[in-house]
């Protein structure tokens, strides 16, 4: 029985990571109405920025390097918008999609150029997890779950209790109308990028602390995050958490029955099913 509980716990863990990524994805989609396929590279660069700060010549300790790494990730996110997406604000969906894909390749290859394709770790000592009820969980993994919950609560209050959040939601509903009533849409868009990038950075760092760093780490998880977004309803924060955990659980419990060779297929199957059964998920949003 223990292996079942452990699988459920691992599912929740994977789900929290997916949810952290899905929230950023859903935020940009909500405000700018396009799927940012280079979000995965923000995740990856978040992890690599921390690596850069902790390695020689800087050699900062983890606590001192965390905030600068997140700051760099945010700068990269805002820079992405300024350099690529802002000039394309009025372009059609296909153009934006291709631009995002191109950017994704560029950023991934840039990481490969600087750090190579090999996997790296932050070099912390490997520890056995804490054990209870036949399950095991590491300190990192507790941090992942807590961070995911804290981020969601924070975002929930930001969106529903603050003026900035409300202006972002207004822009998301109708950009033109928001402008007409005097909402600073530029500020709302900038905020969306800052928050989405910071979330990506947090998620990437947690993922890399739990596993390791490699240039492809963002891409693999982005598809899962996208599936989670669809499952939870685009623009719905709690939905992102719910969708993420559901996919994480489906994957981890699914491989106990079907061949693990099809692990990724589970997330894709859920995604395709959602699109077939509820095509409105991509359009309808903000039901919370």
């Amino acid at each position, binding site marked *: 029985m223990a*292996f079942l509980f*452990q*699988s459920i716990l*691992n599912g929740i863990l*994977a789900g929290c990571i997916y949810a952290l990524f899905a929230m950023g994805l859903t935020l940009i989609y909500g405000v700018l109405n396009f799927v940012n396929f280079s979000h995965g590279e923000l995740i990856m660069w978040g992890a690599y920025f921390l690596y850069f700060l902790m390695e020689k010549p800087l050699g900062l300790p983890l606590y001192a390097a965390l905030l600068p790494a997140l700051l760099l990730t945010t700068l990269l996110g805002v820079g992405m918008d300024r350099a690529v997406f802002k000039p394309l604000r009025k372009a059609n969906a296909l153009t934006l999609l291709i631009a995002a894909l191109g950017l994704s390749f560029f950023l991934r290859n840039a990481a490969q150029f600087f750090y190579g394709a*090999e*996997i790296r*770790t932050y070099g912390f*000592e*490997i*520890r*056995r*997890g804490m*054990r209870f009820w036949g399950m*095991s969980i*590491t300190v990192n993994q507790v941090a992942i779950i807590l961070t995911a919950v804290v981020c969601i609560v924070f975002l929930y209050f930001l969106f529903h209790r603050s003026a900035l959040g409300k202006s972002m939601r207004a822009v998301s509903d109708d950009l033109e109308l928001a402008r007409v009533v005097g909402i600073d849409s530029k500020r709302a868009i900038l905020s969306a990028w800052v928050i989405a990038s910071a979330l990506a950075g947090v998620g990437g760092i947690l*993922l890399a602390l*739990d*596993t*390791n760093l*490699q240039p*492809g*780490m963002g891409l*693999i*998880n982005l598809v899962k995050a996208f599936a989670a977004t669809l499952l939870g309803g685009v623009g719905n924060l709690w939905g992102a958490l719910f969708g993420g955990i559901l996919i994480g659980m489906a*994957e*981890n419990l699914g*491989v*106990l029955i079907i*061949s*693990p*060779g099809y*692990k*990724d297929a589970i997330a894709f199957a859920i995604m395709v099913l959602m699109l077939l059964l509820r095509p409105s998920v991509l359009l309808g949003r903000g039901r919370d």
Partner: protein
Amino acid sequence: MKKLTCLVLVLLAAALSLAPSAFAQDTYRIGAAFALSGSIAVYGEGFKKVIDMAVEEINAAGGIKGKKIEIVYEDNKSTPKDCVTAVRKLITVDKVPVLFGPAGSSNFMAAAPVAQESKVVMLSAQGAAPNLTKAGEYIFRVFPSDVLQGKGASELCVRLGYKEVPVMYVNNDWGLGLKNAFVENFKKAGGKVTDEIPYDENKADYRAELIRATKGNPMAVVNLTYIKEGAVMFKQAYEMGIKTQWVCGSAARAPKLIELAEKAVEGIIGTYPYVAQDTKEYKAFAASYKKKYGDDKIPIFGDYNYDMVFLTAKAIEKGGYSSEGIRKALPEVAKGYRGITGDKTFDSDRGVGAEYGVWRIKGGKIVDSKE
């Protein structure tokens, strides 16, 4: 005027490069498309040292029927594209009937069709990919195929008394081929494979696969893995408190695995193609290397390259200095030939067999084990 000068220079250069092949009929020339620059130049440089040594020894002993051997080196720059260029140059310009191919299975396989189409014999001394020689009957290797590791892993399990094991493998051609070889041999030996768990490359999370593999607490789990995937897996298994004996192939036998997964890989065992270094022949090889180069750091795969030169010389001696003659003579001279790396008899895929040793990670180091 400038154009004309250029043209003259180009023609002159062409004439110069052609000259040796036109006049040098007093030696047997063998091509070598080696990585002398680029990412795996360390291979090419090492190979060259050993090959030069082997050629010296053959020539000192009178060459082949009185004629000396000469190696024509061509830099393949470590990329598949330049490997093709290098092999093509050796075939068309230097007109060698036989050549030593590039290191790195993908590099070798990129150039193999060129040699095959030109009907020129090409050999590999370190290519391990199962399909390495698939290009055709002119392509040989003196290094054992990876698939044989599956057999080695099976024999190891039987020796250690594991009757029922699950097997995990990388979900690609390499992993699948290896897994099939393992399952086939293990069943033949009376063992039972309880579960087969394929997994994708380049994942950060293998916890689900690990839980499935260790369901029911098996005594041992066979894991046919690479370094990267192995490091992630063994680390996560350690964190989850999974206790089992991991049995691997040779692809995971690397210091990098220990660097990445530290104490999580302690106690892992595996098999690898083993070259007995205590034989008289190997000791003589090591001694003459030391005499020539002043150190005992024999380059990786150097021993296989050494055997390759001697086999090729024997084939030229028997079949004559033509690609057709060498192709036909190679299996004949190799049959029962014991080089310093063991039996070099070619199988139906123009590859060789291997003897297997056991490695274990002990105290953060890879050591030979007696199991």
